[in-house]
């Protein structure tokens, strides 16, 4: 017997309902929400004040003008805030699902576990980081010379690739929880640490770190190269400039690999509940 389409929601419809419920729940306490969003905005803006102060003192960051650095900074923060909004379920997965054993209940539902965890919460708080990132990004485009009109296409594409990459990190982090049960803070190195590393030009880092954020975590592909392409800035490391138009694809490839890893991990899941 096949379920009739009028009574069963599609995957997207279901997600929309879960997201709607989550938004209503968060707006129940408007005061808390506003304070947290403002806190988020101020914290992230202050971290740009740190970079700006370095410019004030040294004139440039290793030969990069402030416009370029602002574009990098804005790009990585906007991408991360989108992933933070969507992926809250994966972030709390270890503590709230694996340790308590309530992941068993998700497995009983006739839907993809990924969809159900995405619907855990559509988090509104990162809007502070998002707005701040957009603000710095626009300011950077304003200040930087040689901005290409193609930036309007490449930058959203890079944000999508970056969000996919960070979401992939969160999914990989959740898949690790099947082994470690509790969440591991070390993974913050890839999320918050990734944001920290992504806001500086790639050439500032030593070779081992450059390789890591290019080939292991494709941070350079979703942030550095698209920014160079948008600003028509030649790459000091010698790669052709058009590569930035295609490189954000690597973020989606990374997400795909993490989804495969997740599916394997779920197949081997043994409940810790009673």
């Amino acid at each position: 017997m096949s379920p009739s389409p009028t009574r069963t929601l599609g995957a997207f419809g279901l997600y929309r309902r879960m997201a709607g419920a989550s938004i209503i729940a968060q707006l129940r306490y408007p005061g808390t929400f506003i304070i947290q969003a403002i806190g988020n905005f101020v914290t992230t803006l202050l971290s740009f004040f740190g970079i700006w102060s370095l410019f004030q003192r040294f004139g440039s960051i290793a030969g990069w003008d402030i416009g370029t650095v602002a574009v990098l900074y804005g790009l990585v923060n906007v991408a991360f805030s989108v992933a933070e909004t969507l992926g809250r379920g994966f972030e709390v997965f270890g503590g709230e699902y694996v340790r308590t054993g309530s992941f068993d209940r998700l497995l009983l539902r006739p839907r993809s576990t990924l969809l159900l965890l995405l619907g855990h919460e559509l988090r509104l708080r990162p809007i502070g980081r998002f707005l701040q990132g957009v603000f710095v990004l626009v300011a950077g485009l304003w200040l930087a010379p040689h901005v290409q009109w193609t930036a309007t296409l490449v930058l959203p594409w890079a944000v999508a690739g970056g969000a996919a990459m960070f979401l992939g990190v969160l999914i990989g982090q959740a898949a690790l929880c099947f082994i470690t049960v509790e969440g591991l803070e070390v993974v913050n190195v890839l999320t918050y640490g990734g944001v920290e590393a992504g806001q500086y030009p790639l050439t500032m880092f030593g070779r081992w770190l450059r390789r890591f954020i290019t080939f292991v975590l494709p941070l350079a592909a979703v942030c550095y190269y698209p920014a160079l392409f948008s600003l028509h800035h030649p790459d000091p490391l010698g790669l052709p400039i058009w590569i930035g138009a295609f490189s954000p694809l690597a973020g989606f490839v990374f997400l795909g690999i993490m989804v495969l890893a997740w599916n394997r991990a779920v197949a081997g899941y043994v409940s810790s509940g009673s």
Partner: protein
Amino acid sequence: MILRPYFTAFGLQWKIGLRYRIAVVAGLVAQMWFGAVTLMAYASVYHAAPDVQAPLSLRQAMTYTWIQQSLFTLLPLGCLPAIGDAARTGAIVYDLLRPVDMWNWWLSASLARLLGNAVPRAVLLACVAGPLAMLMGLGAWSLAPPAGLAAAILALMSITLGAFLSATIVMWWNILTARTLSPLGSYAVGTPLAVLLSGMLLPLPLYPDWIRPFLLAQPFAGITDIPIRIYLGTPIPGGVVTGLGLQIFWLSALTLLGRLWMRQTVNRLEVQGA
């Protein structure tokens, strides 16, 4: 003995801090990562602008960053978690009923919590960033020794004052929590303030010159910035005496005002729960 209850409160929180050994190692990895990213950024900024007379040399900026990273958990990022829980559940009445001075009772618990978290991490990171980095041939990136014997002794005194100052600021967050019945507000306010104003984000001496006197005079500078300056032997306007004087001033001012605020808060405290 009259001080015994406060030592008990201290001992309890100290043991909680030492409990999570894996968390210490995880924190170490994260701090190494953030330290490495920051150090590489500073190195390339300094090398690109060799003519700029910065208030800190590159080696000093690196040492500053290592010490700051290792003392991250000493910062007053929010209220004591136990008090946050007590405020929410109403268990705070038990604290009110105790025949002890509540300020000292909470202060000893807060201080122990900060030290129990910070001391093991600081010792570990100092070993890795100091002698171990030297042995691995990374001498230029390592933690520099103190400027001299006198500087070392004064820095030790200063960091002791800094720990008390930090615990006193945590007390303010505790009172805020008791007042608003939720620990979230204290974290939303405390974390950005502490990260920016203590020099965690960027060493306070590297900010633009016009803002530096204000940054030195505010209370958060007394936690880690002043001890590190004494350790490095970088000049403080007015000498070491100003540094220690500022710390003592803020310690007494915040204690007096905080006690007043606490008395007022306790008098009108409404406890929820049965």
